[in-house]
């Protein structure tokens, strides 16, 4: 199944469940995430089966640091590598749950998440962009795109 066929309702339900569980904030599929503006912290993961494509999740770096504080409660310093590790885990959880829900009879498959910070520029006209607003006003961006 091509990533363009992934049902928005599946994405929305998985994203809201994962964000609420991991950073303890409700999330609504609303808002407008600016992929081209400011310094971002992002994580990308390849979708292997049953959906084929790539998923990217991103937040503003400052927002990533605040989410990190919510999760770690001061136990660990919000260093850049640690922020990216958090985003990788969020991406892994969202992508995995989405894959598992698309076809409950299939063995779901993912690549390993990668991450980065700074600008995120690789966008094409076929990219699907989603935004989620958290209870505290932070906006999380999610991008789905074909690999080939």
């Amino acid at each position, binding site marked *: 199944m091509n990533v363009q066929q992934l049902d928005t309702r599946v994405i929305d339900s998985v994203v809201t469940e994962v964000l609420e569980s991991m950073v303890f904030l409700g999330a609504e599929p609303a808002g407008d995430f600016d992929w081209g503006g400011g310094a971002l912290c992002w994580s990308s993961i390849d979708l292997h089966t049953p959906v084929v494509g790539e998923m990217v999740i991103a937040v503003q770096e400052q927002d990533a640091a605040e989410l990190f504080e919510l999760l770690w409660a001061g136990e660990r310093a919000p260093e850049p590598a640690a922020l990216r590790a958090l985003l990788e885990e969020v991406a892994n959880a969202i992508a995995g749950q989405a894959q598992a829900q698309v076809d409950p009879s299939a063995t*779901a498959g993912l690549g*390993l998440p990668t991450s980065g910070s700074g600008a995120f520029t690789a966008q094409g006209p076929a990219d699907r962009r989603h935004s989620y607003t958290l209870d505290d006003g932070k906006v999380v961006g999610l991008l789905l795109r074909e690999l080939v």
Partner: protein
Amino acid sequence: MANVLIVDDSPTARMLVRRCLQIAGYGADQMFEAEHGRAALDVLRVQSIDLAVVDLNMPVMDGRTLIRFMRSSPRHNSIPIIVVSSLVNDTAAAELVAMGASTVLKKPLSPAAMASAIAELQGVAA
């Protein structure tokens, strides 16, 4: 009281498992961590482990391979294994249990799910 081995390549995920175990009231003597299956085998070689909490999608050696190694080892084949993964549906859970996982939980993990899984394992062991 027990020694727990947490196997996940994500430090965030390992911390969440640790916290869930603590909130669930699972009194571990020591929690050992490994970032992939191969590193977990190194821990198993030198430590006595009573419970393993294992992710699936990891570099170097994934969770399925680690489970196969553990279940093929006379020394480690009775250690309860809780698989924690985002890649879980009914099909995957059945496959993992057939492979040797004691129970399978979905990421992101909750303390309630962990407590329930441990209670179930203790019931089986009793």
